[in-house]
């Protein structure tokens, strides 16, 4: 490893579809969706980012592509963090699933699918987890009204 972890990381990344920048709290890696699996595997095996801390999405309503999927990786040995971002379109909000690399992705992807409707290719189990079976829509999308109610059991008069 070189002295500057950020520079070492930048060198190891594929030339196309990946750009690394220094964020205010951790480095941010912008990825093209098709690079995701390859880069996350590389980060885990060769750069010690062995834990998937967090997975979520941001709905930039009005921008194209509309959704930004965000992963936070953590290295349990070197204690550094890394944020990975990729954009997906509203028409086809699909990214590759990380379940083959990080087991933690199984539950997190279910939650992200619940809340934003992002589909994770390769995760066979995207059943609702925080919501219930039959819930319509994805509540954390910006166009889902905050006061919309979908009670599973009819409310009493």
């Amino acid at each position, binding site marked *: 490893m070189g002295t500057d972890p950020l520079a070492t990381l930048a060198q190891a990344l594929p030339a196309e579809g990946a750009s690394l920048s220094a964020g205010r*709290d951790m480095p941010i890696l912008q990825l093209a969706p098709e690079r995701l699996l390859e880069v996350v595997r590389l980060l885990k095996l060769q750069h010690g980012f*062995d834990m998937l801390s967090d997975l979520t999405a941001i709905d930039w309503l009005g921008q194209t592509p509309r959704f930004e999927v965000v992963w936070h990786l953590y290295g349990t040995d070197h204690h550094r963090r890394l944020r990975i971002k990729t954009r997906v379109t509203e028409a086809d909000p699909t990214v590759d699933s990380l379940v083959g690399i990080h087991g933690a992705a199984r539950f997190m992807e279910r939650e992200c699918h619940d809340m934003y409707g992002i589909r994770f290719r390769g995760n066979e189990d995207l059943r609702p987890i925080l919501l219930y079976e039959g819930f319509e829509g994805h509540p954390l999308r910006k166009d889902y009204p905050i006061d919309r109610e979908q009670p599973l059991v009819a409310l009493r008069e």
Partner: protein
Amino acid sequence: MDPRIPNPVRSAIEHSGRDDTVIVNIGPSHPATHGTVQIIAELDAEKVLRVDVHCGYLHRGFEKECEVHTWHNLIPYVDRLNYCSALINDFAYCDAVERLMGVEITPRCRVLRTLLAEYSRIADHLTCIAAALMELGAMTAFLYLVTIRDQIYEHLAAVTGARVTYSFGRIGGLAADLPEGWLVRLEQILVDFEEFTGRVHKLVDRNRIFIDRMRGVGTLTTAQAIDLGVTGPLLRSTGAARDLRKDTPYLAYADLDFEVPVGIQGDNYDRYYVRMREMDESIHMIRQLVDMLPEGPVCVDDRRCSFPDKAAVYTQIEALINHFKLVMDGPEVPAGEIYTAHEGANGELGFYLVSTGGGRPYKLHVRSPSFVHMGAAGLMLEGYQLADVVPTFGSINMIGGECDR
């Protein structure tokens, strides 16, 4: 079940492939699952073959609700994530917002937050261990631990005004300074704590029944834990000394002398023991923090986030407008994003904030340890006895408030 009420979950275990197994529901409302969680298990006699864990019964749209409230208004909400150690949530959230705003808290606030966070950690661990022991029939140990927890709750009520959900953090400081004599009472409680946990150690540690129920049950290896994102006492019980307070120090942890207790084989017994040892370390930290507590204000003097003095609000127009703007519009947080992780009582508690400027968050995401641990729960339950579900689930310490958000 009433056929007009649709089933909220679609079980992953619809059919057992064999004719000698049975599928049972444990929960969502079951006396032994503290928190509404549903475990669908396939049993071969008493042995658990497969489980499907469902959480979400306490989902209340926390993250959606956060997007329409000001940054300050969220403090009572984040309290209700892990309601066993609400102050840790408060401080983690405030820390995230302060970093985004570039606010540096005062030295006294830094030490006080650390002290109160460790105090909350003790209350959380006490709750977890007491409940887990009670479920195994150890009523005396439960009463000893809850006695101390109640003293801590009353003592926290003396500084925050509430027993469980405190709303005590403020962006840029704390709601109040310590009242007179609080630290004197603190030391008395710490002495009582040592007396009572000493008795629990004697009752439980080498108890044949306890060891038989806990040793070698619900085991997890370090590699499995890291793969599944498991953090906190659960990860440390597998033997990995991973603690955000040591690894990525925040607040005043870099100035403190403490150890990271670890287990050996990642079973229920190790999780119990790691939590007991962590409380000892917290006591050790609290005593150091009391000694190093500096004088000075608890809130930063920054008009972007701190409320002006009440006396000034009533007499000066600038202070009145400042107060009005902070209440109505909320503190202005510059555009940007931040992920801040604190070592919560159960593991890594992360806040991912996205701001586009203005007084309200564009997005707020909580990385809650309980939710991630629910993803690992299946592995800890499968292959053991049905009766082991209760102590294993108790030792995971799933908190519905932060799991389901």
